């Protein structure tokens, strides 16, 4: 338990990222509203970027814009790899968000609601009615 609390002093950004990830996950599985679910997914995405950026940061070093005059001193710059990975992540999350929102628009047109429970109940009703028509 003491370890877990100490994390907030030594690894604050990583700990914050983990807590944010949990909040997003909770939002994703608890919210009934589909838009809120999508926001939860976006919070999870952001927490992953925070984690990656925190892993790449080294105290006192600069962004990797290299001074072209003279030989390169690698102890002056932070790790450029996590920065590139975050870029990939942002692009994918933007695409997924757009896709999910478009799906939500279609669901709203079909059912007139974005409450996932209501949609499931309506679906069940439709299925029952179809069964009834069949028999």
């Amino acid at each position: 338990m003491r370890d877990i609390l100490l994390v907030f002093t030594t690894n604050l950004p990583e700990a914050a990222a983990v807590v944010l990830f949990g909040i997003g996950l909770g939002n994703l599985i608890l919210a009934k509203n589909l838009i809120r679910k999508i926001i939860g997914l976006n919070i999870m995405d952001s927490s992953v970027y925070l984690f990656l950026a925190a892993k790449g940061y080294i105290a006192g070093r600069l962004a990797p814009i290299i001074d072209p005059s003279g030989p390169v001193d690698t102890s002056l710059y932070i790790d450029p790899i996590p920065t590139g990975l975050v870029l990939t992540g942002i692009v994918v999350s933007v695409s997924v968000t757009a896709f999910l929102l478009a799906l939500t628009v279609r669901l709203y047109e079909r059912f007139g609601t974005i409450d996932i429970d209501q949609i499931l109940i309506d679906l069940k009703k439709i299925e029952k009615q179809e069964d009834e028509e069949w028999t």
Partner: protein
Amino acid sequence: MSRRSVERHVAEGSKTRIIDRRRYHVLSVLFVVFFIASMLFMVSGLPEFASPDNPADNEVAEKYLEDSIEDTGAVNAVAGMILDYRAFDTLGESCVLYAATICVMLLLSRTRQTYVKEAAGYLPADQIDLRKEKNPLADDAILTVTLRFLIPIILLYGICVVLNGHLSPGGGFSGGAVISGALILYACAHGELEAENMLGRKLYMTLTCAALGTYCVLKGAIFFMAANHIEDHIPKGIPGSLLSGGVIPLLNICVGIVVACTIYGIYLMFMRGGFEK
């Protein structure tokens, strides 16, 4: 099954659903708390934040930092990495954006026939005027006048970020997002029809495809030549000047076009609320 028995069945179902729902709530809160606690325990095993002996900061990062200028000619090591060493990764990202535009288009666009058929339910056919579909924000005096000054500045800033991608923080992705912001503001102020006239679906899809194709052919050819030991004779330029970094500025422009067109296109698709002229 009669209609009443269907309704009773659904009602019984919803009663058990409420109990299920409560159990689901409790279980998922417990799960999330347990998840956060276990992940925090994991984080406590990580090396201290921002320490220089972080194992992630190893010879790979050093290699990128040391050889970036010599290999790629770009002063910005991140641009050199994502547009030269890992150029195919960036191509994949651009293709993901393209796929997202296509998916949104498939989901949200309807043909003129469907729209007319739907509108025919409440309007006589000769009164359906598609041009009257308007944005409530359109022709707002404050917005229009402000944006007349703002849009050129935002566009110039976006272009500057794209062109300086190999010299300063930024590049195709961020610059493209800034440019798309200016385009979206234009669509906000003048309505979607005006925006369609400025940069319609056909044009922005063509631009996206052309940029993706250019990127693919250019970088593919360079990788192919390098793998077969053929000199490509592309001047690297003086590191730090605008025309340096070989093809990196060109690739940045391609990525910028793809990002700007994608975000603008997705916005237009959502704005029109799902019908096609």
